[in-house]
């Protein structure tokens, strides 16, 4: 355990000092949720927080990876460093994954100011890997200015990215059909910026116009809100901008980068702060629940936990009382669970 702590600290220090191999190893530890990763994140967290975390989501084939490559190009021109976490789905049956997003970004593979990491979702539903937020923290602490998170090609409910990012970009491809029903209400709700990509295709302008119209009739999006009450002084989120890009040529990408910067600047008025608060809450609760589960299934409490669960299964105890007893046993271990 203390060996892990030392190794975690070593990797963290080396990664911050610019050692890319150490950074890559650390990301592996994060993906594997090892004690090394925990030690490293504890150490790195205070130094993270200055990167702009941007989530990029949208239907399969909409052009997310191509747009990430185009954003890398644009950000590098502006002298900024960029890290990418690109998530592809794991097979629920074999656990294997084909991580192909990188193909579109390889032109920047040898640029020292760019770091690209592919991650398999490993059974985590929601468009990201369970460890994507920690991976972003590590890349942030390693000094990258911009951290781009590409999600799995989303169906509809994968809105988790909004909690992981400061700014969420939802990508749509032009629709050849009559209406933009492809865009799902859930996804639009979390969009800070909506991008119609493949601007070179017919219908891009029309799709953008339809989206703008949709966004003016639907209520302003709720930002991935923290359940902590937000004060009345909290600014109402703005409706997302709708932009058109052609990721394959770079058209419109400078304007997108500018829009990202504007959204981030608006963070000073509270928008990004709300996203960060929601992220903090999601992260901490995830750890709390993991720790609680570990605790109740740990050697000392397992028999008591199991007999409580059995009592509920046999209807001798209701689930609320059971939960209250388990929680009470945390405070006072002598309380029978």
């Amino acid at each position, binding site marked *: 355990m203390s060996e892990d702590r030392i*190794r975690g600290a070593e*990797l963290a220090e080396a990664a911050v000092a610019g050692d*890319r*191999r150490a950074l*890559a*190893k*650390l*990301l*592996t*530890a994060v*993906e*594997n*949720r*090892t004690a*090394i*990763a925990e030690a490293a994140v504890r150490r790195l967290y205070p130094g993270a927080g200055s990167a702009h975390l941007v989530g990029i989501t949208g239907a399969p084939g909409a052009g997310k990876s191509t747009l990430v490559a185009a954003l890398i190009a644009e950000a590098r021109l502006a002298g900024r460093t960029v890290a990418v976490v690109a998530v592809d789905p*794991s*097979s629920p049956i*074999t*656990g*294997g*994954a*084909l*991580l*192909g997003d*990188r*193909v579109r970004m*390889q032109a920047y*593979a*040898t640029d020292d100011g760019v*770091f*690209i*990491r*592919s991650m*398999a979702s490993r059974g985590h539903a929601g468009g990201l890997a369970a460890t994507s937020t920690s991976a972003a923290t590590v890349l942030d602490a390693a000094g990258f200015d911009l951290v781009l998170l590409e999600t799995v090609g989303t169906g509809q409910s994968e809105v988790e990215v909004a909690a992981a990012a400061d700014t969420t970009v939802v990508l749509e491809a032009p629709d050849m059909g009559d209406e933009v029903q492809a865009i799902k209400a859930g996804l639009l709700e979390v969009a800070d910026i909506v991008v119609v990509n493949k601007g070179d295709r017919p219908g891009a302008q029309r799709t953008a116009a339809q989206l703008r119209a949709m966004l003016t009739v639907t209520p302003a999006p709720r930002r991935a809100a923290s359940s902590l009450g937000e004060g009345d002084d909290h600014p109402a989120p703005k409706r997302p901008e709708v932009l058109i890009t052609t990721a394959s040529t770079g058209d419109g990408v400078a304007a997108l980068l500018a829009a990202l910067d504007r959204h981030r600047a608006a963070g000073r008025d509270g928008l990004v702060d709300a996203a960060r608060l929601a992220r903090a809450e999601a992260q901490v609760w995830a750890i709390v629940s993991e720790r609680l589960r570990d605790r109740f299934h740990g050697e000392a409490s397992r028999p008591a936990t199991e007999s409580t669960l059995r009592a509920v299964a046999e209807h001798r105890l209701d689930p609320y009382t059971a939960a209250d007893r388990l929680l009470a046993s945390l405070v006072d271990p002598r309380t029978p669970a």
Partner: protein
Amino acid sequence: MTDRPIKVLIAKPGLDGHDRGAKVLARGLRDEGFEVVYTGLRQTPEMIVTAALQEDVDVVGLSILSGAHMTLLPRVTRLMHERGLDDVLVTAGGIIPDDDIPALQEAGVAAIFGPGTTIAEVAEYIRTHVRPTGA
């Protein structure tokens, strides 16, 4: 943790447009439970090695049918050595004459698989020669 999937990079060095084998292999290894990073066509040794480093793969698989294997593969292994990737298993496949195999093995390519290789053979070879690292 040792039960995480083994991570493999499948790369095509040089100006070789034959990508059928690489794609067959990438999908086949995914179906065998590996996490496979595919980087596409026309990769320089520098691009391949940087990808291997950033992705922290356990295995680099080079697919080459162009005939340039004697110059490109040793360049990849040399660069890997320079970047400290000595613990990464290097395999190759494609059109590589038997006569060239000893020199390539000397250069650090652990095993070479020709036409007709089954996915199961490759998967088995990787599983018996790699121990994934927790970090």
